[in-house]
């Protein structure tokens, strides 16, 4: 890179063009991350917010309180389990339908893709509300068809989690399906023809040719799904009315929200936020390595 006057002029122009973006990102994304960590070190409650009591520095106090609480471990376990079910469901449905889409004529494929696009486009709150109505205890279509009059799906812990997971799979499988469909279509036909000529069965071709070729793409959609499903907030909050009866349907993000804004324990809420961020950071490192291997360049 040269350091002549021209380059210096470019530097000044670049600074002017980048200033608004840097200002917004610095103030509203980088600074809050720093603040999140700072707040998590304090006992920050309603009195401190209103200025009635001084801030007390706790150091890692909020974290030791969290790690010692059975509630936190239960919520963490539920979050991991819920995310795992959502990811597996999304991948299974998305992959199966991507394969199915390659086997049918364009009119059928377009029908499927349009339906999937509808599910994908539905705002999370609207989707959650529709599913709540479909599964309503008295007026819902599902209970009427199954003859389960008066059965509440959102009352039991596991049926509530199952219902939320089903809604999450419904609105997130389209991304996986369309991405994998594009991936399958990008495999050169010669490769598949060669496998057939060599006498490979359809199953053998799928296992030994298609899956290895799609591996990088599969890793990317898996990790992307893990990141999304680990931080689901809206569906859980809306469908279980804020985390279920006595908070038995809490996941980390909803837990953090309730601690901070319902119980006014902002310091504790921030500490849960830090834990979520760290977990996702680890997942993200794997994501970046997968991206790098699949050939994405900076």
């Amino acid at each position, binding site marked *: 890179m040269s350091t002549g006057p021209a380059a210096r002029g470019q530097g000044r122009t670049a600074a002017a063009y980048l200033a608004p973006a840097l200002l*917004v990102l610095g103030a509203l994304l980088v600074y809050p991350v720093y603040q999140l960590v700072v707040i998590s070190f304090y006992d920050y409650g309603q009195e401190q917010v209103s200025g009635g009591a001084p801030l007390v520095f706790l150091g890692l106090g909020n974290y030791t309180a969290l790690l010692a609480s059975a509630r936190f471990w239960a919520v963490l376990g539920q979050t991991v389990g819920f995310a795992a079910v959502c990811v597996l469901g999304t991948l299974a449905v998305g992959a199966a339908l991507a394969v199915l889409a390659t086997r049918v004529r364009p009119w*059928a494929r377009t029908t499927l893709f349009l339906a999937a696009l509808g599910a994908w486009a539905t705002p999370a709150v609207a989707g959650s509300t529709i599913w709540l109505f479909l599964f309503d205890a008295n007026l819902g*279509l599902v209970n009427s068809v199954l003859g389960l009059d008066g059965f509440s799906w959102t009352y039991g812990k596991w049926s509530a989690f199952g219902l939320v997971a089903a809604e999450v799979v419904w609105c997130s499988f389209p991304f996986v399906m*369309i991405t994998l469909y594009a991936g399958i279509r990008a495999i050169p036909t010669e490769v598949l023809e060669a496998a057939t000529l060599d006498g490979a069965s359809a199953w053998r071709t799928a296992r030994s040719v298609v899956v290895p070729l799609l591996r990088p793409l599969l890793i990317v959609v898996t990790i992307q799904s893990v990141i999304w499903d680990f931080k689901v907030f809206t569906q859980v909050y809306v469908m279980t009315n804020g985390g279920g009866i006595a908070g038995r349907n809490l996941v980390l993000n909803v837990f953090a929200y309730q601690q901070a804004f319902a119980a006014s324990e902002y310091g504790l809420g921030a500490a849960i936020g830090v834990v979520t961020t760290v977990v996702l950071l680890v997942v993200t490192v794997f994501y970046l390595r997968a991206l790098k291997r699949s050939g994405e360049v900076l």
Partner: protein
Amino acid sequence: MKRGVAEAITVVIAAVVAFPLFWMVLTAIKPTDEVLSTAPKPWTLRPTFSAFARALTVQDFGRYFVNSVVVALAVVGLSMLIAFLAAAALTRLRFRGRATMLVMLLVVQMVPVEALTVPLFFLMRSVGDAVPAFGLNHLGSLVLVHLAFSLPFSIWVLRGFVAAVPVELEEAATLDGASRFTFLRRVLFPLVAPGLVATSVLSFIHAWNDFLFAKTFIISAAENQTLPLALQVFVKPDQNDWGAIMAGSTLMTVPVLVFFVLVQRRLVSGLAGSVKG
């Protein structure tokens, strides 16, 4: 598997996937007694818009609809402008720290913004002390955070579109006496417009769908609620006006559906490209 069988299965699955949306629209146009029937029928012979009327008048949905539109459009407009300038600088200009900035851009995309509600809540409270319109309980606070959340991705995608414009074009414009800013405005901007459309649709949808930050920031000003928040408030235990709720859901879903269908090709290829490399 025979192709005919596969196609039959495909159509059945498509119907199942689309069913919740069909049910939403159907419930919205059913008369109240049919909605409240314990033996719901998958059709209606007496379609009516009375549920929409109730949603718009009793529940004041029109106001929340406008609020959501204002927030989403402000986010789209500002992020287009800011992201375009930043993308132009990052692709067209040589300066120190450029590589670092690209890496930073990738890193901030990975920040789970849902974890930032607490610090952003306090930040907006302080902002509100200085400029009320951008503080808690005002739509400006939502515009600010969604602008920040949408920028990294928008800049990242636009960078590709700017890079695709040949450098010779800029040299020709400079020879013709155009200043750098004129080139940006008159030549580069129209050429990257397709990229701007794709990124702004995504920014629009994110801002439009947001529930968490609307819930965190708009605490006591009911008149400044956005659609997702308003819809959730209407769902009350045991006394739901499901017809009006489904009418509200329809009003909220339709704009996004229209956008999705309009840009689906670009969206799909863009998303596939962003993960395929």
